[in-house]
């Protein structure tokens, strides 16, 4: 297959940031295509800058390229300027490794981390020259696959996907590869597409939407059932039991041009059992599986040497909870002492003096700002969301930050949480003001920024039954907060316009009927909707009106206990009655300690898969952590995925 480089080359001088289309990263593999190798185009439905650092895609890229039966390349969404030029000249979507047309691959795999990228997925499939609807594809078309956190409710995009993968991809990718290889070797004959999809549906962790019938009664969804007896009634997620077996990425890609999270990233553990009820990542990635500290040290040391990066992030949902984190951080700092300066960052900081202690250890110079995520303004509200931070925890953290030389504190909050009252909202302002007061003992003009995001309930969380706040209500709460802090010196309130929360809500918990809205918005040019300057609420509300989709019913309505949820035929390992009980506990303002160090609540994540939490230490980390035998309600460190990471000292 000839590459598109000769046609592409003259266009690149005409577009913004052309370096994102040339590949050439250190760590990129030279692809060797062959008739007996399955060709994967691993794709991210957003720009190169956002998509390249995605660790999931990088891990799969390496695993596939190590497999003698597979070859993998990568693609990202071309920005609108290049897309226009490509469409004018009939140039298809291409891989950035060898600039091969996307339609020349056997599978196009997408990582879905944000609902607002769905229209980009459709756009990329279309740019590849592939029909956007699965039903219209023929044997010559690539299979369209998706994985990532959003696929725990893939129903809104079910009609556009051939295969959905739930959970960790490290092992299942090889199983999929073998089935697709048989299909490829047999010549992809007429009618074979249905057969290969049915075959793929037998793999645990693989969901094939077209193998299921959806039944409605009036407006209500009543069942999603397999069309054949050999297709599973419920699709279970995949879980890698031992992270130590997968020290990936081994050669992290080092891009030529600047990207987000542009540093060495080493995953120290997967999963989180803090139990924050708003946090989908913490619920669907259980149980906790730590990487052995020795392996982390090796990956950091070799990674820094190989990439030339001067920054390493120890990633996880709550890195301060890693067993022996103080020693690990100390070892890394010490091992880089005699070389060029290296900074260590933790993507989330625990809200207590212990967390600040670690920050102090790794950030010896340039202490400018620290970020904490208390998430809610009152203790009552924090019990509802199970983010069990006492006010004293926050104050001890802030006190420690200021006394160790930091000058700015940033606090993350959510607005629109279940049972939230104006008192809870105003509690955010109160906390911020008290933090400024604490800072005055240490610095002349302490600054505290409260960053407020609108809450969108997610599948497989206890809040999946909650009817979210309207855009208007969220705006009212933000204004309330803004008015209240207008005269508070040192307090700044920052917020994202909540206009996108309605669309996120509908796609997060929608069913297959929502698909037509996504397609319509895409056809109207609504791409890059997660970019504030490109998001267009009118496009969405018009499309919903055209297709009779009621936003109130999908986003703002509380669900009942026995209602069939669109993702009930999928499983993240969590028992539905556990989630329902946790929802009742939330409404009763009852907190639940971390099960890593306390008895099991039987959420299902361990028992269902016969695995256990893998933690190096049976005792919880030192400091005021919940579950340490101290009062319930000591610090909890989880922050939502997809937020800006806490870079210590930035």
């Amino acid at each position, binding site marked *: 297959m000839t590459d598109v*480089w000769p046609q592409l*080359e003259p266009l690149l001088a005409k577009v913004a940031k052309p370096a994102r289309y040339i590949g*050439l990263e250190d760590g990129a593999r030279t692809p060797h295509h062959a008739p007996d190798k399955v060709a994967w185009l691993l794709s991210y439905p957003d720009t190169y800058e956002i998509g390249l650092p995605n660790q999931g895609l990088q891990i799969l890229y390496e695993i596939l390229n190590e497999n003698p039966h597979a070859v993998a390349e990568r693609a990202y969404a071309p920005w609108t300027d290049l897309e226009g030029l490509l469409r004018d000249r009939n140039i298809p979507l291409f891989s950035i490794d060898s600039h091969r047309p996307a339609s020349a691959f056997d599978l196009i795999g997408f990582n879905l981390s944000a609902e607002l990228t769905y229209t980009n997925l459709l756009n990329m499939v279309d740019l590849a020259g592939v029909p956007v609807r699965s039903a219209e594809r023929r044997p010559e078309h690539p299979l369209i696959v998706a994985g990532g956190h959003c696929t725990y409710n893939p129903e809104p995009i079910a009609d556009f996907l051939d295969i959905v993968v739930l959970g960790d991809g490290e092992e299942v990718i090889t199983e999929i590869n073998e089935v697709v290889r048989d299909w490829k070797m047999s010549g992809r004959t007429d009618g074979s597409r249905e057969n290969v999809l049915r075959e793929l549906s037998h793999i645990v962790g693989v969901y094939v939407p077209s193998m299921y019938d959806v039944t409605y009664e009036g407006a209500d969804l009543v069942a999603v059932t397999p069309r054949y007896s050999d297709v599973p009634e419920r699709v279970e997620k995949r879980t890698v039991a031992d992270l130590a077996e997968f020290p990936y990425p081994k050669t992290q890609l080092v891009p030529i*041009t*600047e990207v987000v999270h542009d540093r060495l990233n080493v995953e120290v553990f997967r999963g989180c059992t803090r139990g924050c009820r708003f946090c989908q990542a913490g619920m669907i990635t259980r149980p906790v599986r730590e990487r052995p500290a020795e392996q982390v040290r090796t990956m950091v040391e070799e990674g820094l*040497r190989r*990439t030339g990066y001067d920054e390493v992030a120890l990633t996880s949902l709550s890195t301060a909870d890693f067993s022996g984190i103080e020693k690990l951080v100390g070892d890394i700092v010490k091992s880089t002492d005699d070389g060029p300066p290296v900074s260590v960052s933790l993507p989330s900081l625990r809200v207590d003096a212990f967390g600040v202690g670690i920050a102090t250890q790794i950030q010896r*110079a*340039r202490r400018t700002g620290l970020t904490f995520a208390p998430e809610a303004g009152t203790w009552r509200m924090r019990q509802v969301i199970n983010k069990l931070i006492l006010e004293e925890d926050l104050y001890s953290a802030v006190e420690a930050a200021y006394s160790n030389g930091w000058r700015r504190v940033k606090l993350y909050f959510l607005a629109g949480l279940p049972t939230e009252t104006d008192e809870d909202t105003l509690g955010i302002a109160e906390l911020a003001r008290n933090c400024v007061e604490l800072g005055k003992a240490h610095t002349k003009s302490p600054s505290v920024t409260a960053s407020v995001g609108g809450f969108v309930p997610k599948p497989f969380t206890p809040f999946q039954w909650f009817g979210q706040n309207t855009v208007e209500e969220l705006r009212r709460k933000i204004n309330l907060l803004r008015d209240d802090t207008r005269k508070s010196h040192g307090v700044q309130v920052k917020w994202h316009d909540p206009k996108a929360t309605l669309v996120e809500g509908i796609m997060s918990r929608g069913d297959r009927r929502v698909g037509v809205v996504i397609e319509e918005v895409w056809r109207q040019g609504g791409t890059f909707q997660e970019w504030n300057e490109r998001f267009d609420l009118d496009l969405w509300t018009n499309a919903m009106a055209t297709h009779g989709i009621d936003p109130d019913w999908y986003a703002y309505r509380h669900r009942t206990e026995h209602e069939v949820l669109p993702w009930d035929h999928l499983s993240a390992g969590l028992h539905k009655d556990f989630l329902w009980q946790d929802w009742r506990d939330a409404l009763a303002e009852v907190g639940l300690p971390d099960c890593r160090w306390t008895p099991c609540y039987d959420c299902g994540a361990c028992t269902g898969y016969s695995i256990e939490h893998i933690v190096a230490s049976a005792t919880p980390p030192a400091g005021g952590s919940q579950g340490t035998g101290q009062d319930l309600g000591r610090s909890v460190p989880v922050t939502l995925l997809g937020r800006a990471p806490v870079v210590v000292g930035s």
Partner: protein
Amino acid sequence: MRIRVRYSKLGKIRFSSHRDMARCWERALRRAELPVSITEGFSPRPKVHFGLALSTSHESLGEYLDIDLQEPEGSSVDLGTLPERLTPFLPQGVVVEAVSVIERSELSLQEAVTVCTWLIEVPGVSPEQLEIDVRTMLDAATLPVIRERKGKKVADDIRSGIIDLRVIGATPSDAPEQGAVFEAELATQPRSVRPAELLAAFDPPRNEGRVRRTHQWIITDGARREPIPAHATARAPAQAGAR
């Protein structure tokens, strides 16, 4: 100890920006474990001084940067093998061509270089037509252009910055778009003339095809020399069209 490095930048990598290249260099120097001096202060940076910026999408046979090495470790670095040592850590298409030690008292690259030679492809034009364009331009006494500076339109004359223009012939067969090629010597001081401005100043304005910087020149006492003397550590000249 300060060393000066000449490198080429050809092929796909031409679409990286000057800033991208600076970051690639910083990583390459760390990977090569070269004892580069580090700035003092809260955000320590390697002491690397880049020459004139090369526009994104332009190729070059002669890019330069100066690197300060720590003493005494720097003096034990083998300059003879340094080009081969650095190149593998740089992106494909970037090749270190030569290295030499320079005095710290030497002017910085940005101050010292006053003229650059460019090879410019003009799509959709015959060599004969381009010859007429070039003649007309060289015969003109002034070449007024309007350029935007901080949002304001400023009138400017670029004629004095055009030192010489020579038509070479038709574009090579590997050119993405067929046309004609010419060589241009353009001043970088007191005001630099960019190839894009030059093409826009033709009547009618011409499109920009591939552009390659071939030389940078320092002029002292009327004599012209390249920032690295010819006898410096050198490797075989890079072949054009690397991808």
